[in-house]
C-alpha cells in the first residue's frame, strides 16, 4: 500500500517551521502567491532534503526565483525549457543511476523533484510528463496549478476553470469567460497506473506534507497536484490567498485524494474525507467564486444565476464521481 496511511510522520507546524528552508527569500514572486508555500512545504517534507535535485519548468516560479546573478535555490536546481521538465528530470535521474553503477556516485540516489506550473504540465508538457511516468523514473512531480498562463499575463490554459475570465477568454458580451471545464489532470496521470497521485492544498499542510512523504517513500514516479492561488490572475486581495485556498477544497472544486498505484485505490483524505462523511459541510461554490475578480461577471453588473448553478451542478457531479471511485457510493 502506498499513501498517507503508511506515513509514520506527523510533524507539528512548529517542527515544520524549524526545518531549514531551501527556497530562500529575495525572490520576486508576487505577494500572496501560493507557489513559494508549495515549494517550501514540499522541500521541508522530504525525508532527506540534503540529497535533492530540483527541476523547474519555465514559469513564474522559475523566472522569479533565478534572476541572474541571483538565485533563491539552496538546492541544486535546473531549468531547461517550458515543455520538458519531466524529460529533463528523466536525464538527471538516469545520470545518477549510471554514475552509481560506475562507482562515481556513492550512497543513496538523490531525490529528483520537479516543479511545473499548469501550462507546463496540462498543456505543452503533457507528452514529456506522460513519457517520463511511463518509463517509471523515480521522481516527484509537483504541479503548482494557478489555473492559467500567469507568467505571460493570465492567458487561458486547459486547467482554467469554466467561466473564469482570462486575457484570452475575457468575459465578453457573448462569451462569459472560458467555455470549457477544467481538464482532469490527476485522473489522466493516475491512468498510467504506476504513479502515486495525490492532490494537495497548502492550506491543509498536514495532509500536504504526508503526501510528499508518501511520494518519496514510493519507489516509482509520483505526481502531486497542488492548487496554487494567484492573487494577480484570480483578481483578489493578497491577504485572501489562504481563505480562497481553503474554500477550493471545502467547495469540492479541489478535493483532496490520492491514488495508490499498488492497490489501484482512490482514497479521499483530510478535509475532503470529512466532507464525504458529512455532506452538509460542503460549502456552496458561490462562496469561492464571489471572492475572485475572474468570476466577477457572474455577479455583476447582473447576477447570472444559471451560470453559477451550472458550475455548482458540475462540481457536484465531479464530486459524486470521486466518491464512487473512492467507494463511498
Amino acid at each position: 500500500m502506498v499513501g498517507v496511511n503508511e506515513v509514520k510522520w506527523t510533524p507539528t507546524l512548529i517542527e515544520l517551521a524549524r526545518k531549514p528552508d531551501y527556497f530562500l527569500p529575495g525572490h520576486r514572486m508576487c505577494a500572496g502567491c501560493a507557489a513559494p508555500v508549495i515549494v517550501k512545504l514540499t522541500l521541508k517534507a522530504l525525508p532527506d532534503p540534503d540529497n535533492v535535485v530540483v527541476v523547474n519548468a519555465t514559469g513564474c516560479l522559475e523566472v522569479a526565483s533565478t534572476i541572474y546573478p541571483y538565485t533563491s535555490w539552496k538546492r541544486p536546481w535546473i531549468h531547461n525549457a517550458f515543455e520538458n521538465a519531466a524529460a529533463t528530470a528523466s536525464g538527471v535521474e538516469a545520470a545518477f543511476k549510471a554514475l552509481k553503477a560506475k562507482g562515481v556516485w556513492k550512497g543513496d540516489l538523490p531525490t529528483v523533484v520537479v516543479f511545473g506550473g499548469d501550462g507546463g504540465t496540462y498543456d505543452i508538457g503533457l507528452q514529456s510528463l506522460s513519457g517520463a511516468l511511463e518509463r517509471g523514473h523515480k521522481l516527484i512531480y509537483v504541479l503548482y496549478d494557478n489555473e492559467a498562463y500567469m507568467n505571460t499575463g493570465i492567458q487561458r490554459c486547459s486547467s482554467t476553470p469554466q467561466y473564469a475570465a482570462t486575457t484570452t477568454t475575457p468575459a465578453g458580451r457573448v462569451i462569459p469567460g472560458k467555455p470549457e471545464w477544467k481538464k482532469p489532470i490527476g485522473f489522466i496521470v493516475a491512468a498510467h497506473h504506476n504513479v502515486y497521485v495525490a492532490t494537495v492544498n497548502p492550506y491543509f499542510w498536514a495532509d500536504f506534507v504526508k503526501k510528499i512523504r508518501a511520494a518519496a517513500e514510493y519507489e516509482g514516479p509520483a505526481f502531486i497536484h497542488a492548487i496554487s492561488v494567484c492573487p494577480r490572475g484570480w483578481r483578489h486581495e493578497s491577504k485572501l490567498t489562504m481563505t480562497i485556498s481553503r474554500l477550493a477544497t471545502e467547495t469540492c472544486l479541489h478535493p483532496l485524494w490520492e491514488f495508490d498505484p499498488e492497490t489501484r485505490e482512490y482514497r479521499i483524505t483530510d478535509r475532503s474525507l470529512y466532507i464525504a462523511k458529512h455532506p452538509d459541510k460542503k460549502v456552496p461554490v458561490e462562496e469561492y467564486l464571489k471572492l475572485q475578480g475572474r468570476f466577477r461577471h457572474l455577479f455583476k453588473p447582473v447576477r447570472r444565476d444559471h451560470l453559477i448553478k451550472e458550475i455548482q451542478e458540475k462540481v457536484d457531479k465531479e464530486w459524486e464521481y470521486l466518491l464512487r471511485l473512492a467507494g463511498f457510493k
Partner: protein
Amino acid sequence: MVAEQVEMLLNGDFAVAWAWKHVEPDVVAAFPITPQTLIVEKFSEFVANGEVRTQFVSVESEHSAISAMVGAAAAGARAATATAANGLQLMHEILYIVSSMRLPVMLGVANRAVSGPINIHCDHTDAMGQRDAGWIMIFTEDAQEAYDTTIQAFKIAENPEILLPIMVNLDGFLISHTAMNVKVFKDPKVVKDFVGETRPVPKIKLMGEEVELSLNPRNPIPVTFGPFAYYDYYFEFKRQQIEAMKKVPDVVERVNDEYYEISGRKYGNGRVVPWNVDDADIVAVVMGSAAGTMRYVARKYRERGVKIGILRVRMFRPFPWRDLQELLRGKEVVAVFDRTQDQGVMGGPLFLETLAALYYLDDRPRNVVNYVFGLGGRDFPPELVEKVFDELIRIKDGKEKPFVKKYVGVRE
C-alpha cells in the same frame, strides 16, 4: 603508439554504436528515426546484453531525448544521443539551451532531407538548420570516420576550455547504411584512456567555495542551471560561448593528432581535409561522402594533367575560414558544393561562408561558383561530377561565363 585494432564490417550507424560502446557514455536517450535507427538498435543490444553500464532512456520524442541530455549532462554524466531530419528539427529549441549551459553532449546525426515532402534520404538541410545553435559540427566521409570522430567528439566537447556540445554528421544511407571494413580498437580500454573513464567535470569558484559544475547535491554551494538572464547579463552569456568556440579549431587539431597516435588515422588537420589542393587551379569544396566520389573522378582528371583538387570541409562549426583562406588563395576556380536547400539566398551555406572568408584575401580566387546537389538523396554519380568538372575547366579557360549558382542532377 598505435593500438591493436580489428576490422569489422560496419555501416556508419553501427560504427557510431561501436564507438559509443567503447566510450560507454553514462546516459543515452534516443528516439528512433530513419536513417539513425541502426545506431540506437545496435546500442540497445549492447545494453540488453550487459556489455555497457549505460542508462538507455527510450524517450517518447527527440525533444525529450535532447531534454534528457540536458538533465544528464548537468548532473555530471557523459551523455550521447542521435537523430536525423525532423527529429533534429524537433530538438532545435533545446540545442541552443545545451550550448548555453555549456554541456558537452554528443549528438550523432544521420543527415536526411527535411520534410516536406517527407523523404528519408540524404541531404544536409537538417544539420544546416542548426548551424547557429552554438554546437561544434563535424561532417564525416565514411563509416570509419564516423567511428573515429564519435570517439574524438567526447574529448573535444569535454575539454575544460571548450565545454560545448558536438554534432557528428554522417550522410544518411550513403554512410549510415553503407558497410565497409572499419578498424575498431580491440581493447576498449584504449578508448577509455583516450577520452577518460568518466567525464571530467570542471570545478568552478562559487561564493568563495570550489564546486563541481554540476547538479551534485554534495557541492558546498548548490549550482543553479538555466537561470533567467535579462538584458543586463544575457549578452555576456553569449559572449562567453563565442570565446569558447574560438578555441575549438586548435583543440580539434590536437585531438586529431592525438588520435593519430593511437589509431594511425588522421583527417587532414581535423578541420579540413585537402586532396591535391596546393598545386591545383581548380578546387572543389565539399562536405560528407560526396568528397570520395569527387576524389575518384578527380584522380582521372589528374592523370590527364588537369590540376584539380578537392577540399573537404570536415569541421563546419566553428567555420574554418582561416584554413580556407590559406588553401584557396589565388586559385583560378573554386567550386563550392552544397547538399542543402538554399531558399531565397544567393547560395548554399558552405558557399556563402567560403565566399565571405575569401573576400578578405588580396589574392582572391578568380572565380567562385556554387553547385547545389543531391537533395533528398538524389544521386551524385561520377558521370555528374565529370560534367561539373568539365564545366569548371571551361570556366578556367575562359570558354564559359562563370555564374553564381547552379543546380546539378535536377529536372529544370
